[in-house]
């Protein structure tokens, strides 16, 4: 047994015995995370740190469904026994205030498993000094592009392990290695400023240490830096509804923010994808060509093979050929939403109660238009030419090409979503004009229903952090290199 969380067997046994004595069902979640970070600002090291975090959260359920939770960063048999008692006391105290019964955990099958993901360039693959040199090198390379640039380069490598033990005998352990590097590039001149990011994520240090990783990051960085500089004097796009093209990172944003959250089983009572609390399986939500899938991918930044409730995480076809198929469900709300459990529960840390959420979500279309370039080498004119060849460029109005994802937000109950890009290009048959980024907002189902084409093969490494329920967990995904979304009055590009 090589996983660090394997060392806590005695503590888990003590907690289970105490839970049994108190007449409660326990789910014990142990987390052990090592995280090393390096920050370099304008070529100088600003941060170098290592964090070793371990702790345990215990959720208990009484016979009549009262739930309580207690957590601590002390993982000893005595501490876990105390936590079981504390959680049980809170659960019973809540009974006086009319709580919602918590059901479902008793219906899942016990599982004993260990999934250790070995990565070629893990935490100790390169020395600290070399690691710092690599990150500083990326920062300095970026600064050399233009003297008007200020650059913060941040690199993080994480070795995270979890162990889930339940009263039914379940005992699963798994690891979730990941690494990411991000270049935050600010261009400033004559009172104008613009910030554009470039990033690369994966499961190990190859994002900064392998020749392939460095080349990709360098290409992305150069592109981002040039965009930031060009944005300094760029006009704003006129607000309104347009035919738009989004890159795969924005497509991930669309799939994650605009759709994935609405497909999570815990919000089915209010979600636009629910009706009377049940998932609207079988209903058409997009054109035949559209498919949306979520699931863990080996080598991915957001990889998680087993849920925080100890259930294997499935790859789920949420939408197949435009029709809703399955929800992302955990053990607690699957039955209520009338969907099967897919092992979607995730938690940020041992302090948090898991909720259903995505891992790697991707949105793809059938028969995409071909493009013979790597994503990093695609220029706006390539996108325009591709649209022109397919007859998708418009004479009467520009097509807006939105490049680079800068985050988003959604209200699954209302179906409203927003996200922002790094830059907008107005594409017309005769011209390409760079404009300031503006928010892309609209109604989820309108956006999905308006996807008319894809360009290029799927790319699935768009990295992000999902903030649902105040918890921050790694997320990722993507789609075809580009998606074409037709003009729709319910989808707006903000601006003046």
């Amino acid at each position, binding site marked *: 047994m090589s996983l660090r969380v394997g060392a806590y067997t005695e503590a888990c046994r003590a907690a289970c015995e105490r839970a049994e004595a108190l007449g409660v069902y326990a789910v014990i979640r142990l987390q052990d995370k090592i995280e090393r970070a390096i920050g370099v600002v304008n070529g100088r090291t600003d941060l170098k*740190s290592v964090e070793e975090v371990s702790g345990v959260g215990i959720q208990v359920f009484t016979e009549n469904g009262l739930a309580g939770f207690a957590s601590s960063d002390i993982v000893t048999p005595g501490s876990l026994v105390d936590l079981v008692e504390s959680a049980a006391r809170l659960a019973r105290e809540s009974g006086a*205030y009319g709580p919602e019964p918590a059901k479902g955990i008793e219906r899942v099958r016990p599982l004993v498993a260990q999934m250790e993901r070995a990565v070629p360039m893990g935490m100790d693959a390169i020395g600290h000094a070399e690691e710092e040199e690599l990150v500083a090198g990326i920062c300095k390379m970026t600064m050399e592009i233009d003297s008007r640039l*200020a650059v913060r380069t941040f690199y993080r490598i994480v070795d995270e392990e979890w162990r889930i033990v339940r009263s039914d005998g379940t005992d699963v352990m798994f690891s979730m290695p990941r690494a990411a590097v991000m270049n935050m590039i600010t261009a*400033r001149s004559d009172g104008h400023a613009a910030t554009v990011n470039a990033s690369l994520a994966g499961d190990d240090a190859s994002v900064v240490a392998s020749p392939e990783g460095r080349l990709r990051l360098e290409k992305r960085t150069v592109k981002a830096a040039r965009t930031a500089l060009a944005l300094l004097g760029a006009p704003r796009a006129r607000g309104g509804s347009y035919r738009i093209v989004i890159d795969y990172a924005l497509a991930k944003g669309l799939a994650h923010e605009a759709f994935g959250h609405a497909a999570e089983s815990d919000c089915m009572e209010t979600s636009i994808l629910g009706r009377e609390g049940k998932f609207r399986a079988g209903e058409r939500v997009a054109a035949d060509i559209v498919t949306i899938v979520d699931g863990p991918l080996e080598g991915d930044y957001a990889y998680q093979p087993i849920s925080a409730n100890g259930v294997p995480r499935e790859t789920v076809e949420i939408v197949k050929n435009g029709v809703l198929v399955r929800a992302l469900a955990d053990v607690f709300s699957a039955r209520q939403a009338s969907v099967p459990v897919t092992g979607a529960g995730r938690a940020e840390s041992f*302090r948090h109660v898991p909720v259903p959420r995505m891992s790697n979500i991707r949105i793809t279309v059938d028969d995409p238009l071909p493009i013979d370039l790597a994503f990093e080498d695609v220029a706006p004119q390539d996108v325009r030419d591709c649209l022109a060849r397919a007859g998708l460029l418009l004479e009467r109005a520009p097509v807006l090409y939105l490049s680079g994802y800068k985050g988003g937000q959604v209200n699954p*109950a209302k179906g409203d979503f927003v996200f922002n890009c790094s830059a907008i290009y107005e594409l017309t048959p005769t011209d390409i004009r760079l404009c300031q980024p503006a928010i892309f907002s609209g109604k989820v189902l309108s956006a999905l229903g308006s996807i008319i084409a894809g360009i290029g093969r799927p790319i699935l490494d768009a990295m992000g952090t999902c903030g649902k329920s105040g918890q921050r967990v790694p997320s990722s995904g993507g789609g075809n290199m580009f998606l074409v979304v037709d003009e729709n009055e319910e989808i707006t590009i903000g601006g003046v």
Partner: protein
Amino acid sequence: MSVAVETAEALARRLSDARGWRLVASSVYSVDVGMDDNKLCGSYRPPRAASEVTGGVFIIWQDGTVSRGRIDSKTLSRLPRDIELWRSLAYRDDDAAHLAGLMPPTQVELFDPRVADIVTGDAGPVFRAMSQIAEAAREGGADMIDAGVGCSATETVIATSSGLWVKYPETSVWCSWSIDKTMSGVRLGRDRETLADLARSVRVTGRLAQAASVRVKVDSGDMRVMLTPRVVESFIGHFIMHNMAGENVAEGRSRYSLEQFREGARVFRGDVSLMINTAVPMGPGSYLCTSEGIPSGRAALVEGGQLATPILNMKYAKRCQMAPTPVPAGEMPPGHAGLTLRAGNMESWTQLLCSADDAILVDNVLGMHTQDPTNGNFSLAVPDGIVVRAGQFAGAAKVVISGNFFKILNQVDTRFAMSEDDPNPGIELTCHVES
């Protein structure tokens, strides 16, 4: 003696060979309860109790390199190994490699024993506060309620090799609610009274949610927009905090340069100021001294519309050759952390609302975190912009508002108004509205 104190004492002994060090260690205990989609507790928001030691240590080694380490409950038991680990990651950061001289911390009241009793004993008041919120929301016609209430009690030690050793208790209380997934409110404090009379605040939110349930149409164009104090908090947190942060100013990642601060450049309207005060008695973001040993206090960041100083910790104070300032506490809205925007002749928020005509009241925006803070441009979705006509709520419309926050703080027709519940004002301004 708490684990935090024990850990701090052990670290102080072990680091006697270093050129200098400073540390902060806290033993934190908390309890909270939540409600999602009208469901109290349940699987996703069960009552929670948590205990943890958190903190960090900063070490200057004899060779001038520095290390940063994290402190938790296990630090004490693995100290020689942890120090070796931190040493192995030492790096050169000459501006950071110095400590504040010994200064007496500011005496600020931060502790209510009645809140500590809730955390360590009877959690009933937390459940009852939750019931108050739910009841008030239902009485106001809410269909869907989400809410959370919690308390914490913390013992903190801040120490430096310069001789500082401060140990103090503090308590925190937080309540938040959202009605019909449209409008929400928050209350933060440190005393038991924070849990009192929640119904009044929830009713204010409820009235906004009710107004949002009636949909009306709005034409696109430039028009008056009223940002509630809650939304102004998010504008300050996103646009102002980024550009006033010393690290961003010093490194050219702020819209303002260090020279502009030195020259006192005019950046806002002449009557607009921005202050930081981290020594407000029982203020949610108040403290005795920073983790670097800088006493809590008050500083003007923008005065009379002119830049005065960025927010500076020790490192960036040295790099900027300016005095360090109090630093706002993290993880809370800037106003509660002590950062307040003020203007001359501020009206009352209630009066401003009553006098509004053909304006959009904005209490919730989507996508703030996606905006570029350096240029001040905003383009934000407002799912429920409330149309105000002749001082009355006429319904709500989905709109996108766009403009430049820094230009708005410079415009003569921008009005500021304080409400009794919020540390920062609401703002009435003109910007573009796309419906």
